[in-house]
């Protein structure tokens, strides 16, 4: 098996019938699939099983039940948390994409030969520890933090501002900063792909810069914008570090209550149900969003 793995890997230029070739292909794919099955499929399957029980320990016992899901959907507190998480993510997505668009536009259309440099400059901050970046915001927004101490030492305020930290506002600001690069790159790529001669044609037919942007550039960059929105929305709903460090009780999100079930409370089935329910909700929303975007694009034609 090792030999055919190697020969399958070294380019398939050996004499082989078509069927042999494909076997080598499946063989090549199997280790990766096996690892992913072990680390992804099996755990998720187990999580699903857990969510259907009432057990308290590692061993599954008791019959199957939908009680956990009923709890998740029924309890007011959980529902409110879901809505808040989705709301925060939605605001973050909006803010991130809206702020990223002009930046991406600048690099695509006005950076000339320095495009490469700008792109590197924009992505460098994101090669650093996410944890430390969130912590940086904590020290910026905090009671004794950078903003407050700067404003006080400049004499602009007499007492520290309290609203900066430990609420949804701080979560939104921190997440918007953390996910900026994920929004810039897809938008940049789709702007870059726009055939410049389309813009020249629009100008030739009488459009000024603003009209041209609204009628040609913006619609053609929509795939990138939608990609960016999904890329930001889906992961931020499940973020743990930011709400924990800067959110306080008011800014808690789904990931916080999920991990609490496993850390302290010990109600693993409930935690599992919360996890899967939130994944399902976010997944459905994402698909609805994409469908709505497609419908809007069709209508605009």
């Amino acid at each position, binding site marked *: 098996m090792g030999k055919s793995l190697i020969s399958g890997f070294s*380019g398939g230029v050996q004499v082989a019938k078509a069927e042999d*070739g*494909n076997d080598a292909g499946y*063989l090549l794919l199997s280790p990766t699939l096996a690892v992913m099955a072990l680390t992804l499929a099996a*755990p998720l399957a187990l999580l699903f099983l857990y969510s259907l029980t009432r057990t308290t320990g590692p061993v599954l016992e008791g019959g199957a039940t939908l009680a956990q899901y009923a709890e998740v959907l029924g309890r007011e507190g959980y529902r409110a948390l879901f809505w808040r998480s989705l709301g925060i993510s939605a605001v973050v997505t909006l803010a991130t994409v809206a702020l990223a668009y002009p930046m991406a536009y*600048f690099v695509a259309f006005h950076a000339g030969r320095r495009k*490469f440099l700008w792109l590197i400059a924009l992505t460098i901050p994101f090669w650093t520890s996410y*944890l*430390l970046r969130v912590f940086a915001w904590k020290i910026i927004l905090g009671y004794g933090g950078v903003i407050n101490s700067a404003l006080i030492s400049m004499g602009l305020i007499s007492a520290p501002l309290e609203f900066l930290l430990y609420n949804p506002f701080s979560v939104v600001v921190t997440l918007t900063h953390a996910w900026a690069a994920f929004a810039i790159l897809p938008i940049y790529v789709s702007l870059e792909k726009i055939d410049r001669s389309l813009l020249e044609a629009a100008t030739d037919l009488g459009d000024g810069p603003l009209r041209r942007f609204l009628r040609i550039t913006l619609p053609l960059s929509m795939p990138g914008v939608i990609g960016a929105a999904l890329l930001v929305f889906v992961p931020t709903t499940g973020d743990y570090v930011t709400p924990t460090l800067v959110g306080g009780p008011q800014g808690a999100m789904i990931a916080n209550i999920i991990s609490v079930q*496993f850390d302290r409370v010990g109600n693993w089935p409930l935690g599992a149900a919360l996890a899967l329910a939130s994944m399902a909700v976010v997944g459905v929303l994402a698909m609805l969003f994409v469908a709505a975007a497609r419908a809007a694009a069709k209508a605009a034609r």
Partner: protein
Amino acid sequence: MKNRWLLVYAAAYLAFLYLPVLFLPLFSFNASQYIAFPLTGFTTQWYTALFADTAMLQALSNSLKVGVVTAILSTLLGLLAAKAVTQYRLKGTGTALGFIGLPLFIPDVVLGIALLLLLAAIGFPLSLATVVLGHLCLCTPFALAVLIARFEGFDRSLEEASADLGENGWMTFWRVTFPLMLPGITASLLLTFITSFDEFLIAYFLSGTDATLPVFFWSQLRFPARLPVVLALGALILLASVVLVVLAEVVRNRGVAPDKKTIGA
């Protein structure tokens, strides 16, 4: 006119991106233990304290170990899968790719917890090895994405030309396939290493008594006295990452025309 405003916006945006990050090194040289303005004075004491902090250095070493192992394994898995998928006509390629790519769409907290559940159920003890397992799950899709892009741009007839000119399978791989894949492999190793090195949540759930660096940082965040030393290490890591990334991008784009340079692999 529009250019001027856009440029101002771009500069402001860049400032917004960098300022929070730059506060870390800034306060790592500040004499005060408290992370607040006004600055009290320049000092390198936190950096010297850093090198004496054995717990932190141990965590750093753990992260490096986990990172290197994850990078190599996930790149290898990505390489095999990318080759299989781009150069053979296999049934179910779409499904396989969708499955392998799932971790990109699942929140870290779910990935970590699910794997924790599995390990607890089979009674497998937590350690750096289990962290590697979790990171493999997370990093393999990244490796796969980078390497598939690289393979798709690979001209199959190059391997045939090498065979035509007299080289057998192994030599063809050595002389043609591997050198041409090297930039992609390097990019994948870099990406997966950094992803694993910085990863907190999955490591938090899956590590036993040995902490990785982010998990260690997390435990220190409660103690204000320890913060400047943490910032010092953070600043050093920031510097190292920047140097690595810039180097990697420059090497990758060496010899490419200025307008054809790309970001990432």
